[in-house]
């Protein structure tokens, strides 16, 4: 038993965070360059999950928590997971569909320039051959109207479910997507906590940094507690998946539930700590909160799994 990252994993975490600071800051998440995806691919994050890479879930979770801290594109989740389960089928960026049935249109997240779509269904993952370009039948991604979502880093569009489909029936496939989504939420909770703590050290009122006051300090401490609980359970869940534990589905669900709550509660608390500034569009405090709202709908933990 060892739930601390080893040296290699720590180095990978550090390298990921460093690259993100230089190339994918949280503050710029609403204006990301088209070239960013090429950068993410070049760094290997869309394919680190491929079988041939031989990385364990624990390492993936650590890296995706770092990426989540910078509000990395949502389709990084679907692209990476698709690479593991549909290896030979996948080309390029894979967007993420939230829900869908044969009759209702799919809600596709982060579609720009995607080649395919990944969707979780009751007991399987489905890969759909729904390229974003030419969706309206008149060719060219630039002509396709994408709608915004509450998360300013993520666009969306509605699409009918058409075209070829492939499925992955292995129950681990869904858990893989849920685990990495939980890792994104853990990173999001961390981002809000750090932003709040940094601001509480900087902003002064009554002649002191506001973090001196217990009322503010305790808000920040609770953010740290929520983030730590979620992160620990994420590590445990990743190991449970790696070791084929009988209760792996429960632990992945527990990790997602705690991470979603931590992301949402920390997102809200971060606005409060920032005061009036937190209310503004200009400051970045609203960005983790809005990402948290989006993540609530990506592979949510079911009560049945948690009580099973």
């Amino acid at each position, binding site marked *: 038993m060892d739930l601390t990252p080893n040296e290699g994993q720590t180095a990978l975490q550090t390298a990921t965070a460093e690259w993100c600071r230089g190339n994918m800051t949280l503050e710029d998440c609403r204006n990301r360059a088209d070239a960013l995806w090429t950068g993410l691919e070049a760094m290997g994050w869309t394919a680190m999950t491929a079988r041939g890479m031989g990385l364990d879930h624990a390492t993936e979770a650590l890296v995706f928590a770092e990426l989540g801290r910078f509000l990395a594109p949502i389709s990084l989740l679907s692209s990476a997971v698709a690479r593991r389960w549909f290896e030979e089928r996948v080309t390029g960026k894979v967007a993420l569909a939230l829900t869908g049935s044969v009759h209702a249109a799919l809600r596709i997240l982060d579609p720009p320039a995607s080649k395919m779509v990944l969707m979780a269904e009751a007991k399987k993952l489905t890969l759909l051959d729904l390229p974003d370009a030419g969706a309206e039948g008149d060719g060219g991604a630039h002509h396709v109207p994408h709608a915004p979502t509450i998360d300013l880093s993520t666009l969306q569009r509605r699409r009918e479910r058409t075209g070829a489909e492939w499925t992955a029936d292995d129950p681990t496939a869904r858990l893989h997507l849920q685990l990495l989504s939980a890792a994104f939420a853990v990173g999001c909770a961390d981002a809000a906590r750090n932003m709040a703590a940094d601001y509480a050290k900087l902003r002064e009122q009554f002649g002191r940094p506001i973090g001196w006051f217990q009322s503010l300090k305790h808000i920040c401490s609770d953010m740290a507690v929520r983030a730590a609980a979620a992160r620990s359970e994420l590590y445990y869940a990743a190991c449970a998946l790696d*070791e084929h534990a009988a209760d792996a589905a429960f632990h992945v669900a527990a990790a997602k539930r705690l991470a979603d709550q931590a992301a949402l509660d920390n997102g809200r608390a971060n606005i409060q700590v920032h005061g009036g500034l937190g209310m503004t569009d200009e400051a970045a405090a609203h960005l983790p909160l809005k990402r948290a709202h989006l993540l609530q709908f990506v592979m949510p933990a079911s009560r049945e799994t948690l009580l099973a």
Partner: protein
Amino acid sequence: MHIGFTAQETRFREECRDWLDENVPAEKRPIDAADAIDFDKAWQRRLFDAGWAGINWPAQYGGRGLSIVEQVIWLEEYAKARAPWIGANFVGINHGGPTLILNASEEQKAYHLPRILKGEAIWCQGFSEPGAGSDLAGIRTRGRIEGDELVINGSKIWTSFAHVADWQELVLRSEEGSTRHKGLSWVICDMHAPGITVRPIRKMSGQTEFAEVFYDDVRIPLANVVGGLGNGWSVAMSTLSFERGTGFIADQVKHSQEIEELIAAARANGMIRDERIADKLAQLRAEVAAVRAMTYRNISEVARTGQPGPEASVIRLFTSELGQRLERMAVLLMGEDVLDFAYGEDNAVADYLRGFAATIAGGTAQIQRDIIGERLLGLPKSR
């Protein structure tokens, strides 16, 4: 990272399970400290004789000399087997002993540690005073040096098991005129010494578990000072950091048993059909899992670096509040039966009422939040 155990650790777990299966007493531990003392001592002696006391304490003082991982395995199996709370031995096993291991002289360790492990010596804690609670540095109980003795005057409060204890970890002001963290000493105080008066205090749950202690010219040899005269604050902090780090593993493990019992109870009485209750239970089960994950993370940190990381105080806070949420849920599931609670009963209501201590004793939840904000997040110190 991995959560599996080695073959050797798994064998150790089986040994624990086998012994507990055959040896956990059938009778319940009496709820009141004075009634339970014989039970507590006998049970501790049995644990010692079978080699289960002080699993990670040094072997030369009667421990097993094993790692903290084996200690956790033992506690997990202990909770699963529903073995009794160690009761009056709690302070010796979880505070006094570990502090002595870290700070005491060879003679002090050789005398006291085996007696703690055998259940022969009951310890209590003398930190809080009527005027020094969260502000522990406000301690006023003083020890005047006379020859090779300390002459002690003052009082302590909230001292669990004081009325049944043989020894006390007593923090007092040994330097006249000193203030705050300076001039304090951590002393092994003989609770049978002349001049000590213990006034037991009844809790709102009905038990008499803690007490006020008065010192009237109590004479204690200077040889009983641990870690050097005037170093009491740092010795006391080593106890508290141990407490925040690994001292509460037993509680953390116990919660995983409790949540399963609550879910079973809610299924049995049909209350789980209430969506709000089902959702709360689901949430609690996720939180209990997180406590285990945090504990494992902390233990891994200890195994790797020799000490708990700064996140230990996070576990302490999260666990104490989670314990209270579990106790509230147990009471909720009792429905109207709560109204039948009477003093002396040992049931979920008693646990709920006693459980308020979890966010008060050993540093209130508010003090824990200060520590997390200042040490983990680097916010400016308010005190």
